[in-house]
């Protein structure tokens, strides 16, 4: 079953000086898939993910999520759609500082007006899965980056979304924490069957995906599927990247 279908997506920024960030992107993602999006810095990865995320309408083309075009919904309907069908994970976590870890995680259920008892049950479940039961009462400034990202993932999946979207989820983490997070993504995808789309420019992280799509200058460039071996897949990714010709810096970019 197709969870996501992009048809001829283009995105142009700017009014007087126009810049084409995406050009004619077509993409189909099946239920349960774990897809990575890669490309050099500025190639349009984030833009693409935002278009899928229903927060940045494409200039032309059509987005179909579970068969319907979210950009055709009116704003309260769209909010409901996001709340129930989508889960987001960001590079800089985007947790809310005023809330405890536990409260951050149940926020999507709060917004949807669930019973407090359901919230508690689901919170325990998801916290256990992500191994963060012991920090639920802490505040955001009291935890590490890895824990913050696991919290964000917990928040993104507590409502069992249709589609989990992540923009450089390991970008702010050290390699150990990054590995933990990727293992979790894979495990969640496997155990809950949630369709996952992840933007990354770290080939290690990308190697956990089933399929990696490469874009360059806003255009589709290549796509490779994972076979049995993750190690082999990693090598393939590196090969494509070197052909793609992104600067070496990009591969291990560390942000300030």
């Amino acid at each position: 079953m197709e969870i996501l279908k992009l048809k001829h997506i283009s995105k142009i920024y700017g009014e007087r000086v126009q810049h084409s960030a995406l050009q004619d992107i077509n993409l189909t993602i099946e239920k349960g898939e774990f897809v990575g999006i890669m490309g050099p810095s500025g190639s349009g990865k984030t833009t693409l993910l935002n278009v899928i995320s229903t927060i940045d309408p494409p200039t032309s083309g059509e987005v179909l999520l579970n068969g319907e075009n979210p950009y055709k919904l009116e704003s309260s309907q769209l909010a409901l759609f996001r709340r129930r069908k989508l889960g987001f994970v960001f590079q800089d976590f985007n947790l809310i500082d005023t809330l405890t870890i536990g409260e951050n995680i149940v926020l999507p259920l709060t917004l949807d007006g669930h019973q407090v008892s359901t919230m508690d049950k689901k919170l325990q479940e998801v916290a256990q899965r992500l191994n963060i039961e012991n920090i639920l009462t802490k505040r955001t400034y009291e935890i590490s980056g890895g824990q913050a990202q696991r919290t964000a993932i917990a928040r993104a999946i507590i409502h069992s979304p249709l589609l989990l979207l992540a923009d450089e989820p390991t970008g702010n983490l050290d390699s150990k924490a990054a590995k933990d997070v990727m293992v979790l993504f894979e495990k969640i995808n496997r155990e809950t069957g949630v369709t996952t789309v992840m933007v990354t420019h770290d080939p290690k992280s990308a190697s956990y995906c089933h399929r990696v799509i490469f874009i360059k200058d806003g255009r589709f460039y290549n796509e490779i599927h994972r076979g049995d071996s993750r190690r082999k897949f990693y090598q393939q990714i590196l090969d494509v990247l070197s052909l793609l010709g992104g600067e070496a810096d990009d591969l291990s970019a560390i942000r300030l």
Partner: protein
Amino acid sequence: MTFRQFAFNNVKRNTRVYLAYFLSSVFTIMVFFSFAVNLFHPVIASRRGGAIELILGQTEVAILVFSVLFVFISVNAFLKVRSKEFGILLILGMSPKQLRRLVFLENMLIGCVAIIVGITIGLVFSKLFLMLLSSLLSYGSLSFYFPVKAILLTAGVFILIFLGISAITPRIIRTNSIITLLKGVKKANREIKFSIIQSLAALLLLGSGYFMALSPKLYDLNPFLDRVVLFIERLPYTEVILTTFVVIGTYLFFSQLSILVLHRLKENKKFYLKKTNMLWVSDLIYRIRDNTRMLFLVTVLSAVAFTAITGVYALSSVVKDESLKDNPFALTFTSYSSNAHEEEQIKIIEEMLDSHGFKYEKYKSEVIKQTAKDNQPIHIIKQSDYNNRAAALGLEQEVLDKDQALMVPVYVRFDPKRDKTLSQKNIALDNGEINLEVAGVAPKVIFYSGLFRNLVVVSDETYEKIKNIQEKYHSYSYDIPDWLNTLEVTEKLREELGVGEPGRYYWSTRIEGYILENQNKKIFLYVGFFLGAIFFLGAGSFLYFRLYTDLNQEKDKYIGLAKIGLSFQEMKRVAGIQIAVLFFVPYILASIHTYFAIAVLQTVLYSSVLKQFFVVIGAFLMLNIIYYFSVRSRYLNYLKGFTVR
């Protein structure tokens, strides 16, 4: 966690962000409340309709307008800081409606707590304000009372304000562009544009506004200028035009001219590339652009505050002068010819003065009233009576020919150019039978302000010839050197003589005028200082609020700069210059505005107010410097936390 718990936690735990908003609300409510306590005090309320109630009432309205503005701006700044948080919530699927409900709940929560705290603090301070007010009014003491009405008014008004603002502000959040919200408040990489034409317009508008303010003083310098001045004088609502010019000019000053100046600095490579100049100049361009409205508002508020305070200060320092000019004699009793008790009454007055040990000189004058052709009353006094009074007032003695007349002003603020009765060339008495040529105008009021309009002095010889006598008044003026102590005597005399009887007699004293004026002016002073202080504090808080808001964005930049080797000393310099510009440019501009506003005031007051202007401006400079250093040190402390990491 339910939605309501969520909203509550959000407020409870986010004190750093909410505190500034909360405190400014508390401050505003406290001020409003304290003033309401004054307004509803039983003693003041019992004098319903009096000048005091009116002034206090209008002040309360002014404070109200200011409160709305202040809370609105605070809430706006407050929402801006939180745009990222809103972005996250929206992306998690919060509907715009839920977001509005969240902001509404938060605002109401903060508002209600602020109202309670503000009124409580206000109750503590109101005792102080009441003491101040009663000593100013010489009302004895205005006792403390439990101000139910003031509490109800304050609570009611502010619940309305918060309801209104809670209902309006959430709509300001641009819920449709989540990406912009997520990225935080603003991007520093956009290009800042300015218009040369609008910058010139700023100069032109400010210049012509100032010129209009000065124009009455520029008369008689050169013929071309005179024509311009006369043109300005003929414009309707000069003050309104002038103010509009200056206000728009101020806005353009910050939105265009200041950016232009900074750009010029940027182009001057020698300056720009020297040490940290590059950092603060480039940064300041963004700061000013982002804070245009705030800087504009701060400038206008400060100018209003400075002008109000200088004005009331000047008014109150001329009060004794004024009542001396208004009442050249300590007591004046005027009797109509139909008053049968004139002599008894004069005896009462003099016995009363004697029995209280006052020394006095009596000046008696006779004044004849006629009606001229144009139905204007004319009052006539003879030369010997005039000279009698003139001697007492230290004026020159006059010797008039039999066909000459001297005009006497009826008000202190007479202006020969404008008061037509004083610029008559000829006077006709007895329906044209006696024709006199006006020889001049006496320099002062000789009875008291307002008595005997169109008063003419004629020679004794001519006076005797007057046949048409509609009324003949006897007016007795007493010069009492110790007049400042005559209040008790006056009160006793009022018991016996009352205020007068229409068509028979009336009398007036200097001390009553003095006390009334004094009281009114003290209230003016009280109100002026109150308003001035509030406006100024408000202006300072705006700035502080903004710096606070900006800190979060600044943080990343300074961390980055510290990493590439910017020392704390240099950081201090960069931040110091920026804060100084934000604090002192509005102050300087507001002072200049005030100077010209005072120039207008001066023509009304007929006395120099330059001294008062400098005292006020100087006092505020001190305040501003204190404000600047405390804000700067807090700001730098905050930054320091990032550099050591």
